């Protein structure tokens, strides 16, 4: 019996409830060893849809993925940013180790166009990664079907599809194989995995925010002040407190 179960669990797409799926699918390392350990296959999945749930903007919700994005864009594959909430800022992307000539920003007006653009990008095979934000997504019946389409397109194009949504979506079912929920605690980014091919990760793991891990901001910022710049006539009186 045990033997039979083991044989069964060796099939792709089949895994025992208590452990992570072990069949090696196409994954890319995220650059965070503690996260890679918790992901089935040891990295962020290619060829499937995944979701990043977060309520706060500016906690490093994009930055923590940049290691995976850089690897997914190897071989001149593109990274499509579909309807991002703001402009992806070129210097920051370079600091995160992304090649700018791979980045493609798509800013559709409507939600349908955003879904269409994401599906086209995934299906084309030209994109290693597609990051998607859906503006004011209503909790409608067709949502699951839309996401399912994206998942199929990601499979067809062997691309990494990441949908960023608010944590309210956690209660709704999803065709995505991976769901990561982010919160901020002190200096670290806390990460739970409510859904993966294996048991959900309830105990959060802490990641150091992307920009902090690569640059020492205070030191760089200090070096940045040109020496010849005249001090403003009215020096800042109540300079806000600066954390050590």
């Amino acid at each position: 019996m045990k033997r039979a179960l083991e044989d069964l669990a060796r099939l792709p797409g089949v895994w025992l409830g208590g452990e992570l799926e072990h069949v090696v699918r196409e994954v890319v390392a995220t650059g965070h060893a503690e996260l890679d350990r918790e992901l089935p296959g040891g990295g962020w999945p290619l060829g499937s849809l995944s979701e990043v749930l977060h309520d706060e903007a500016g906690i490093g919700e994009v930055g923590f993925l940049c290691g995976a994005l850089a690897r997914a864009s190897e071989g001149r594959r593109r990274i499509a940013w579909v309807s991002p909430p703001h402009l992806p800022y070129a210097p920051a992307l370079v600091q995160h180790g992304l090649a700018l000539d791979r980045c493609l920003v798509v800013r559709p007006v409507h939600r349908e166009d955003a879904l269409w653009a994401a599906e086209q990008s995934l299906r084309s095979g030209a994109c290693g990664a597609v990051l998607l934000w859906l503006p004011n997504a209503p909790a409608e019946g067709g949502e699951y079907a839309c996401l399912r389409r994206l998942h199929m397109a990601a499979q067809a194009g062997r691309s990494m599809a990441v949908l960023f949504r608010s944590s309210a979506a956690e209660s709704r079912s999803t065709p995505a194989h991976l769901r990561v929920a982010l919160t901020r605690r002190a200096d670290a980014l806390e990460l739970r995995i409510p859904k993966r091919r294996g048991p959900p990760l309830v105990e959060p793991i802490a990641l150091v925010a992307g920009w902090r891990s690569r640059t020492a901001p205070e030191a760089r910022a200090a070096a940045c002040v040109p020496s010849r710049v005249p001090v403003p006539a009215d020096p800042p009186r109540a300079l806000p407190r600066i954390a050590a």
Partner: protein
Amino acid sequence: MLWVALELPELPLQIVERAGASRDPLAIAEGPPQRPVVACANAAAKAAGVREGQAVAAAKALAAALRVVARDAGAEKETLERLAAWASQFTPMVSVEAQGIVLEVESGLRLFGGHARLTAAIRRGVRELGLRAALGIAPTPSAARLLARGEAQGLRVRGCFAAGELPARLAELPLFLLDWPEGTLARLADLGVLRVRDALALPPEGIARRFGPEIADSLARLTGRLADARSPYVAPPRFRARLELPAQAEDVGALAFPLRRLLAEFEGALRGRGAGAQRVSIALEHDRTARTHVQLDFASPEREAEFILAIAREKLARLALAAPTVALELRADALLPYAPRASTWLPGEREQALDAERLIERLAARLGRDRVFGIALGDDHRPEKSWENRGQTPISKERNSVDAGSGIPSFGNWGLSPVFGPRPVWLLHVPQRLLVQDGEPRLQGALEMRGGPERIEAGWWDGGEVRRDYYIARNPRGETFWIFREHRDLRAWYLHGVFA
């Protein structure tokens, strides 16, 4: 030499029905306006008893709903020329004949994998154009035409591949299939000479004396005893094709089918020239004067019908038509050299780049040119100018331009100059003024400064002067922002970026 002839005896009818066959009886009329006769009739008209050569008045009596269209010799010639341009993808030697075209194919037989595959490809291609043609293959163009006409008449004919077999293969074909004058044919029939075999049995000198030397020469050309030179058709260095729709199309979706036909013709003609087009315009004709123009621009020369159709569909779907469409016109005025796309099993970097170009075309066609863009570093310290909108420049072109440079790396090629401080992933297009309480900025709670100030002072040379102190600030929710204040007014704080 091996020639393929395509004969289109129903050409006048096919021109009208190309964009979609009509179910109502339809006849093409020719002859003097006082007594027009039926030149061709479609299946519905034939079922009602309409025959070729009948007077139009008699035909109308047989089928009350008969639609009669006057024969247009100009359109026929133009269609044949367009067919010849399309066929130039198979051979450079294509010649336009009275009711069809002939192609010299021997030189390309190996390339196309033998005559069976070649003729199958030609037949399939002609069908995709919306035309029906009979096909003959023989060592001389006249014989190929004769065989094609035989096939069009429903006779059992087989292709002939050796000049020695020609007389035997042609023997049973009736003489009236040749372009000989009616009088000559009648006199030959009086003599009991009805088939090619009978004519070949007669001494050529006798034929020349009795019926004229051109008849004897015609027979000699048929069997290859006399050289039969044709001049190749040279297509004009641009592409223009027009197709009338069978019924007025109210809906844009109904245009896809006729457009596919035009694009198949386009692809064949450009394949023959080894060309592609970077700009293709489609005109939807509503009536004599009103037209809607749709222009497709590509990053690199294109000609594949399927791809262009996909782009055109996206464009057309965005269109609200004021009036129904009666005809379509496809134009490409500048033809450029085309680099064929290799379809490999495992796409390499080059293919990825080409795929990406096509993806960008497709996205831009539907969403608009300004909504799909690449980004690059800008040569400026001002945050709003330290990035550039690269538009839709394809990677491959950009790489060439870098290669073409003297190898001096520009600011963008170095990666980032090390004097930059941390930059946020999101940049706001317009800095947003922050709420200030007790002299301190707030954004969903008090902001705690985590880094800075980073002074950015630039632009005094171009009037867009910026003197700002940037800080990295975090609110109690853990959200990290990039905020600044201007030296002009130190109490005013602005949000400029989000460390996402």
